[in-house]
């Protein structure tokens, strides 16, 4: 095949891949069965919201995520904050390096909060932290469709107790690895 044919083929392939984007599937919210979850609207094109719509859950079960592989890269956060501090960014660079070396894996980003907020606030805070990690990893080149988020609020502390040390250990996003089933 000469160069003249390759470019149109590449363009066609790009369009084909875009059509496979799960978020444009009208039923991406549902897993079938007991309900009729509807798709949501897209992010505001005016850009006043930089969030990236989440990928379909597909067949991924959070309980299948292996958190031991990347345990050293658990990202920690300041109190009531979901911003990734400079000292934590190196961990995410390490995560992106690992994904490049281990292609085909998806990541499950599990967000947590310390118990000093009310339950719903903590659940959303944990999710915001997971989304912040996701956004950062997308910025490092990982495909958004391979990054799943969940939040456990303050329900699953890493360390029990009421000390500042315990609280600091609980404000985290743990990075779980999903290996595709053969």
């Amino acid at each position, binding site marked *: 095949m000469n160069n003249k044919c390759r470019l149109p083929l590449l363009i066609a392939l790009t369009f084909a891949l875009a059509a496979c984007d799960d978020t444009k599937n009208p039923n991406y919210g549902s897993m079938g069965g007991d309900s009729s979850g509807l798709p949501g609207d897209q992010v505001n094109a005016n850009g006043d919201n930089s969030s990236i719509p989440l990928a379909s859950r597909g067949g991924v079960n959070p309980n299948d995520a292996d958190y031991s592989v990347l345990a050293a890269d658990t990202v920690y956060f300041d109190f009531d904050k979901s911003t990734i501090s400079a000292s934590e960014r190196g961990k995410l660079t390490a995560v992106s390096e690992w994904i490049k070396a281990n292609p085909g894996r998806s990541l499950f980003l599990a967000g947590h909060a310390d118990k000093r907020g009310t339950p719903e*606030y903590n659940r959303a805070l944990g999710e915001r932290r997971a989304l912040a990690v996701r956004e950062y990893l997308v910025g490092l080149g990982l495909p958004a469709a391979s990054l799943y988020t969940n939040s456990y609020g303050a329900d699953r502390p890493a360390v029990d107790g009421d000390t500042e040390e315990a609280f600091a250990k609980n404000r985290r996003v743990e990075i779980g690895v999903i290996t595709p089933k053969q």
Partner: protein
Amino acid sequence: MAVHLIFPSLLNLPANVKYLSIWLPLILLAGLLTTQLHGQGVTVEVSTLPRVGVSISGSLGGGATEIVSNDLKRTGMISPVGSGSGDYLASGEATESGVSGRLVNKKTGADVFSQTFTGKGRLAAHQFSDAITQAVTGLPGFASSKLGFVAGSVRVQEFYLADMDGFNTREVTHDGTISASPSLSRDGSKLAYTSYKSGYADVYVIDLASGARNRVAFFPGINSGPSFSPDGSLIALTLSKDGNPEIYTMSTDGGSLNRITRTRGSETSPSWSPTGDRLVYSSDDRGSPQLFISSASGVSDMDHLVTGNSYCTKPDWSPDGKWIAFTTRLGGQFQIGVYDVAKRTAQLITTAGGQDPAWTRDSRHLVYANNGRLHLLDTVSHQSLPIEMSVSGCGEPTVSR
């Protein structure tokens, strides 16, 4: 202080005038100080409450008399007394088939009402209590409402129902996972809540009579904090599926999704106005979580409620529309605040801690949680009573209307 100001000029006055001039200002000052200490709370002397004598006969009469007496006392607005005395007499018969109840005004001798209450078990007695409360105080009683809450420990929480007096507790979910953010529909027939049964945070609706359960929101990300609209046809909730936790409404079967907020911050805990046209929720778009009101029909302006507190979450709109209760955090401790919708001001109602308020139907009392226990709070007197439960680790109360 007053004495020092007055004393020098009193040296030459007759003894009785001197006496009055010292003590009267002191008494007035003490009265002023007492009012300051209670703030907006009103101290109600027990002796000024209307007294209702309670005497119910029949095979279940003893139990019914005790239930009704305790219900009336718990309102903080009635003093239950023995059948011999009182301004009113509540009498009747309690059997397996229900309670027949009568209220007589002893001063006038007139029958206030005579009625049969057919609720099952203790409910009939609670219904009698509520009819007495309504007749004597003008406010609806809340004894017959359903109280829902989650209970358990870290990692496992289930949803429970109980009577408002803490009796008749029954476990509704048995999933061995986290159940959270429960919301009873106004009529008490349905429950919406968040469960991690699937591994994800999903919203389910349970029909409490049949036990049938449907998963209604299971979008990518979190689905949580559901709240039934006043007419029970819609649920407002938080979804993060578009990349950020925002407020949406949906019909109770999961369809007709409608987005309400669009910010860079995260929005949680929506609560409906009594007419169903607006939602109050918590958003941290400005930094710390604050309360906002928006239209319930779509993305629109956010009206910031200035409470004077830097952390405001979990708002709950009272049935009469006049108040929004919320949780604030001061010095590391949660407290309950109440926002006056008309005056656009807020005040704190608790000092010993409290979170996650849920109004009862009289728009005066609410239920809140503190350190794993539920409490009933009178927002007028600021008096708080524990609701003794047979389970521990209780939180996130919800009350049917």
